[in-house]
């Protein structure tokens, strides 16, 4: 039911973990649906994502999309990162089973929240 890319990211997820001194953290999902994704960002002075990590509770699709998005945006500017959509993440993984498209495909939402959190933190500092 899953593509090879999904299984690859599920079995060997990239960038798992936390960033202790993260300057942006975002979480989406809830335990009711059984998917929770949390993304940690380290954004540098030039507004480039220097480091990104995730922790996810959920099915293989949830874990794979989390892993994939970290790979897609690491080293990118936050403005470019914000352009990534859930649909693109799924496409990069060779597609997801239809029922997973809406429930477990939330990585871009988590990233967006993390970036917003970073921006809010920045605004406070100024």
């Amino acid at each position, binding site marked *: 039911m*899953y593509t090879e890319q999904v*299984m690859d990211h599920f079995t060997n997820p990239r960038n*798992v973990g936390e960033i202790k001194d993260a300057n942006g953290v975002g979480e989406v999902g809830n*335990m009711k649906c059984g998917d929770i994704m949390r993304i940690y960002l380290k954004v540098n002075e030039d507004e480039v994502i220097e480091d990104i990590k995730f*922790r996810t*509770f959920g099915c293989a699709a949830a874990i794979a999309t989390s892993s994939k998005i970290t790979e897609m945006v690491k080293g990118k500017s936050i403005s470019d990162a914000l352009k990534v959509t859930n649909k693109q993440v799924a496409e990069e993984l060779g597609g997801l089973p239809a029922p997973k498209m809406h429930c477990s495909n939330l990585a871009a939402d988590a990233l967006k929240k993390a970036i917003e959190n970073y921006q809010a933190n920045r605004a406070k500092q100024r």
Partner: protein
Amino acid sequence: MRKVYLDHAATTRLNEEVLKEMLPYLTEHFGNPSSIHSYGRKARAAIEEARERVATALGAAAEEIIFTSGATEANNLAIRGIARALREKGNHIITSAVEHHAVYDTCLALQKEGFDVTILPVDEYGMVSVNAVADAITDKTILVSIMLANNEVGTIMPIAEIGKLCRERGIPFHTDAVQAIGNIPVNVDNLNVDLLSLSAHKFYGPKGVGALYLRKGTRLSVYHHGGAQERKLRPGTENVAGIVGLGKAIELAVKDLEPKANRIRALRDKLQEGLLAIEHTKLNGHPEQRLPGNLNVSILYVEGESLILSLDLKGIACSSGSACTSGSLDPSHVLMAMGLDHQTAHGSLRFSLGVDNTEEDIDYVLKVMPDIVARLRSMSPVYQGGSK
């Protein structure tokens, strides 16, 4: 890679002896059982022999057995058939919150058609209480349907007591015995049931065939129309080879039931002990009143589908009650009815053991499981490294 099948509650491997008896009815004895020539008579005789075997296994009479395409059809036939037959007497049906969808959804469909359906709650072990059934019965009650043993958590219901109660009140009592046959004794008189559903592929028979036991004198309305087969209650040319397979499979299933069940239970207990030794795990289902081969555990802080896939990559087959595997957005209705919180339900795993499992199978699962759990927990945002 080692392959370990621990999903016998989903389906079982066809027994070789069963296959051997079925094969001639797919080839040389291909006659239509309704034909009066020798081809037809050969097939008819095979069906009637299978009917005797099913009846004997259940402690019933042959004429009380109706062959169907499986338990889903048997459940539909039983529930809809009684509901229509007794519509003049009343419109109240009692069932439980942990029934298989073949019963549960059929009752909900009748509710939409205007029947009054009481869905009884269960306790934390998935058990229906006899008193709750007694309290729910009204003078409009025309059917009670409670499963014999639950398919997800294995809890064995007090069917004989509920049956006694229904008998006293003159209410037809149906039980879905799909998971019970071949695992615990099933005798229609001891259980006080009027209708009972079963399916061959759960006890090493073929898929696509089952039966409904219908106690003599129980009225049932027809809802499929066609030929005169199966007393017109299940018209259509019979699945002869399947029925032959069902007959042989049930004969083998009830043979030496106790030693087989004891051996499986011992393996199950070993698996249970080993899995519950992993931190933050919980047994789902009744600690004692449970099918010998069933083990349902929740692995907290991780999700069931991830667990299943990880186990599958190691050659181990099992199932889960998580939303991702239920085909809906919600986790298993059984686990939710037992009062589990969402996380515990999403992290549930069902292992169901069968006659082919060995001690080595269990050792292998226990060997690979801790690493799988640790890996998924290390990724989990809700796991704080050991402390809740």
